[in-house]
């Protein structure tokens, strides 16, 4: 009879417990021979294998775990780490808390930066899309970059340059009244765009064909939100029609609402063919700038090389002939990559379609602040770990005596610090879940911690940084601790580690950073306060701005007189543009004895009472008045800057006019105003000319209210409005709100820097608090002896504080020059800025000194009042 398969037998013997082998092999043999007898040999062999495999059960398997368990040591280390945490609750708290706050702050900053840098990243062709911008240089106006281009530029670039694949224009049409049957709404953010818009940009459509949606004249695309204002469902809206004035527009598609992180924000897109089919010359229109042009370039095109050809392009299309390069004195073109439009446009003016435009340089500031905070927190960890080393001498000594190798001790301490860092990471996550909504309120963002859940790769980055942080901060304390000589420790010789230069250096670094942040915050707040309170030369409080259309313009005089009858209204006027923006520039000419001068200052057309309502001071001459019939379009009030530019000795009465007026039919200059800051304080005051043009149609009414109850005044204005205006909604804004948005980027930066400064000081102080308590503990005997010998409490406190105060002073000396340099650089962003006063540095130093004193005071004063007996009793 054949014996059972030996391979299967060997396998079984290999894995089965020794004590089971005999009975199991016996049972299987019996089964095997039983099957041979009753069935067949093959069946028996197969079954033997089957039975062997069925012994692969936990109860029967050999226990392969060896007696020496590799995890034991780790378990032990974990336990020791845990016990140390509990034993020194105070220090553990400081360590974990400061790391937690540091990591939480960095995470928030990281979220912020990711949000800002994610702008316009949803377009698949984003790396090849450029915005066409101009540098304008007109006499009488400073050279300025503007986000404007001319209608003829896009089409002609497409035909002139093979590397330009496509273009689209983006022409702001402002607020429009749309209606469908009885429903009508004014819709903001409406634009004319070329049919290529949806091919260049990837704004998603809910319905409609993105290839053809913008091809036909009178086609319109609505965003989902806008469509649902007029229609019950998207299906109903798609293919439906909507009225704008007398035009019936066909809805050829519904767009998804534009994402928050897009610099272009729109609710309605009209097809550009609506314009070009009636006016084909539009595609070759030059000279005036009023829209944005975006270009799509070939993959490997060097944008700079293309830019170099744009001078000739301008000459070709705008010059009289190919020799006439005068146009280049006024215009130059440059290309701005799509990725830079959001973050790198702060020096670009007339940039109207750039939602949430942010000064990209602040991104670097934020990153730097985040790193500072992390450094300050890490220093706490390193300092406290090494300063507390004395408590672990014995542990290290004993471990070494029983055979621990350096690497094992090193691993132990590194593991501890990594564990703490990870714990801090978890806590930081929890803190941020609570803190982010609050931060969102402060800086007007929509940040969310879901970002990390949605995009785990960023979570991995944070995790990696935390691990690295644990490793780095653990490195020095670990090396420090493992370097102890076991023999010295066990003999009872104290290590002379109290005066650590390295540790002092870290404290200096920590306080230097904290000091830099304190001073920066003071300067930044100072500057913002300055901008808020600077006398800009006109009243910006209590002014209500109200949108106007043709109907409102027609009834302006009527509304104005009714409003002026109200007790809450101090004045009513209107203008073509809003203060706080750079006014449009166009030609202006004066005639003097020596000839006619052309200039291009900023211009604004206003209503008669403009200067009175805004309280703009007239230095020479008079204000506008209805008593002079020539004040309509023929009388100019200019600012001092323009007088200077024109070189006029006696400006009043000088013949002047718009650039297009013939030289022999000019009006005259009737007044000169002081240089008021009609633009934001980032910019110097430009030359300005003001003129009355009631016939041009004002864009905005300015109503100055008086009294303590602005809401009541608004209600009264609205009441008057509703009685006279049928088709235009009452839409208002306060002028100071508008100014607040001008400094939004700066305010948000200051909010973040202030919050971070407070955190940095908090963390640095906690570290100092811990460090001073350790130092006091180590000097307790010295203090006792000194007291016995007659030292008083003040002397003791001074003795204990002296070193720390020296460190703070040293930090001040090192940090001040660097801080000065950085702040000076920042202030150059503002044409009007405060000077850096050295007093602020002294104030910052005093603040940090005071904070340091109070922090260590708790321990030093306590020590100085302690009864020396307590300290000296045991010896």
């Amino acid at each position, binding site marked *: 009879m054949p014996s059972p398969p030996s391979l299967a037998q060997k396998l079984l013997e290999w894995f089965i417990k020794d004590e089971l082998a005999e*009975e199991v092999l016996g049972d299987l043999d019996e089964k095997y021979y039983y099957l041979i007898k009753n069935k067949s040999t093959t069946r028996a062999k197969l079954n033997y294998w089957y039975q062997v495999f069925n012994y692969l059960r936990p109860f029967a398997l050999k226990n392969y775990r060896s007696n020496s368990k590799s995890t034991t040591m780790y378990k032990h280390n974990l336990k020791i780490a845990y016990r140390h945490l509990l034993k020194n609750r105070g220090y553990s708290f400081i360590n974990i808390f400061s790391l937690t706050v540091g990591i939480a702050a960095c995470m928030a900053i990281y979220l912020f930066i990711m949000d800002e840098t994610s702008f316009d990243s949803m377009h698949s062709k984003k790396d090849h899309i450029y915005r066409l911008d101009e540098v304008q240089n007109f006499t009488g106006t400073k050279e300025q970059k503007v986000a404007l281009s001319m209608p003829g530029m896009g089409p002609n670039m497409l035909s002139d340059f093979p590397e330009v694949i496509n273009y689209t224009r983006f022409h702001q049409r402002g607020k429009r009244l749309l209606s469908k049957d009885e429903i009508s709404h004014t819709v903001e953010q409406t634009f004319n765009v070329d049919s290529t818009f949806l091919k260049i940009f990837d704004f998603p459509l809910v319905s409609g064909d993105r290839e053809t949606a913008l091809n036909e004249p009178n086609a319109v695309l609505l965003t989902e939100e806008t469509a649902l204002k007029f229609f019950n469902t998207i299906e109903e809206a798609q293919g439906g029609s909507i009225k704008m004035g007398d035009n019936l527009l066909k809805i050829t598609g519904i767009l998804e609402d534009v994402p928050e992180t897009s610099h272009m924000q729109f609710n309605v897109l009209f097809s550009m063919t609506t314009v070009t089919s009636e006016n084909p010359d539009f595609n070759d229109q030059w000279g005036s700038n009023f829209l944005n042009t975006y270009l799509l370039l070939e993959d490997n095109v060097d944008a700079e090389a293309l830019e170099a050809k744009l001078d000739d392009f301008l000459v070709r299309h705008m010059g009289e002939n190919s020799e006439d390069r005068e146009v280049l004195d006024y215009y130059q073109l440059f290309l701005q990559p799509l990725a830079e439009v959001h973050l790198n446009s702060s020096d670009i003016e007339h940039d109207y379609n750039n939602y949430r435009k942010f000064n990209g340089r602040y991104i670097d500031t934020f990153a730097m602040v985040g790193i500072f905070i992390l450094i300050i927190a890490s220093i706490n960890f390193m300092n406290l770990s090494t300063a507390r080393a004395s408590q672990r001498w014995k542990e290290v000594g004993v471990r070494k005596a029983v055979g621990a190798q350096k690497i094992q001790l090193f691993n132990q301490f590194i593991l501890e610090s990594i564990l703490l860092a990870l714990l801090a990471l978890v806590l930081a996550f929890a803190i941020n879940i609570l803190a982010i909504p609050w931060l969102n309120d402060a800086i007007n963002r929509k940040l969310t911690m879901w970002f990390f859940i949605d995009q785990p790769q960023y979570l991995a980055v944070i995790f990696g940084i935390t691990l690295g942080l644990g490793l780095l901060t653990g490195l020095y304390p670990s090396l420090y601790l493992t370097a102890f000589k076991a023999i010295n420790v066990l003999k009872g010789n104290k290590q002379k580690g109290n005066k650590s230069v390295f540790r002092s250096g870290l404290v200096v670094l920590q306080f230097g950073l904290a000091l830099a942040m304190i001073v920066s915050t003071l300067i930044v707040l100072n500057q913002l306060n300055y901008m808020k309170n600077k006398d800009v030369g006109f009243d910006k409080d209590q002014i209500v701005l109200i949108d106007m259309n043709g109907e409102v313009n027609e009834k302006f005089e009527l509304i104005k007189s009714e409003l002026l009858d109200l007790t809450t209204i101090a004045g009513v006027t209107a203008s073509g543009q809003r203060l706080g923006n750079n006014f449009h520039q166009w030609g202006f000419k004066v005639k003097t004895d020596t000839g006619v001068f052309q200039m291009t200052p900023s211009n604004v057309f206003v209503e008669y009472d403009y200067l009175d309502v805004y309280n703009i001071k007239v230095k020479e001459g008079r204000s506008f008045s209805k008593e002079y019939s020539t004040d309509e379009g023929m009388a100019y009030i200019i600012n001092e800057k323009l007088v200077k530019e024109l070189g006029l000795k006696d400006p009043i009465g000088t013949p002047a006019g718009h650039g297009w007026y013939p030289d022999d039919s000019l009006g005259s200059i009737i007044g000169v105003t002081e240089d008021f800051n009609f633009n934001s304080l980032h910019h110097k005051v430009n030359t300005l000319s003001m003129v009355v043009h009631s016939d041009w149609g004002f864009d905005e009414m300015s109503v100055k209210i008086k009294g303590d109850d602005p809401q009541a005044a608004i209600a009264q204005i609205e009441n008057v409005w509703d009685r006279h205006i049928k088709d235009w909604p009452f839409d208002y804004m306060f002028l100071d709100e508008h100014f607040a948005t001008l400094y939004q980027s700066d305010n948000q930066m200051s909010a973040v820097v202030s919050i971070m400064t407070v955190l940095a000081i908090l963390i640095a102080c906690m570290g100092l608090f811990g460090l001073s308590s350790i130092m006091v503990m180590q000097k307790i005997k010295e203090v006792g002896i000194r007291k016995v010998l007659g030292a008083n409490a003040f002397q003791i406190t001074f003795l204990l504080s002296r070193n720390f105060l020296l460190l703070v002073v040293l930090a001040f000396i090192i940090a001040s020059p660097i801080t000065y340099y950085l702040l000076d650089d920042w202030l150059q962003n503002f044409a009007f800025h405060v000077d850096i006063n050295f007093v602020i540095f002294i104030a910052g130093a005093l603040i940090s000194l005071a904070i340091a004193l109070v922090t260590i005071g708790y321990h030093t004063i306590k020590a100085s009042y302690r009864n020396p007996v307590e300290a000296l009793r045991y010896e």
Partner: protein
Amino acid sequence: MIETKLGDFEEVILLLVGILGTEAYAFKIAEEFETQTERSVSIGAVHSTLTRLGDKGFLESKMGDASAERGGRRKRIYEITASGKRALENSRDFKVSLWNQFPAFANKLNFNI
């Protein structure tokens, strides 16, 4: 704590140990299970259950004699303990009580016990 409830398969195995008496060792029990239930089972599965019943204290075992067809190896003979018997009785009583509460069958079936 060790689970002391009897599973269905455990109960059958325990009963088979009782039935087989001195012949109750893994191979025989597996054979008997297959004949009685007409379901196939591996010796390993039976052995595993026997061990578990041993851990629960329902079975005791000792090594028995060797025989030629086992290649001269001894077998492990199992025997029900007192608590094993009690567990079987409890299990039976519980089921009978359930049957008695079943209205369609209550008192109509005669459990000969």
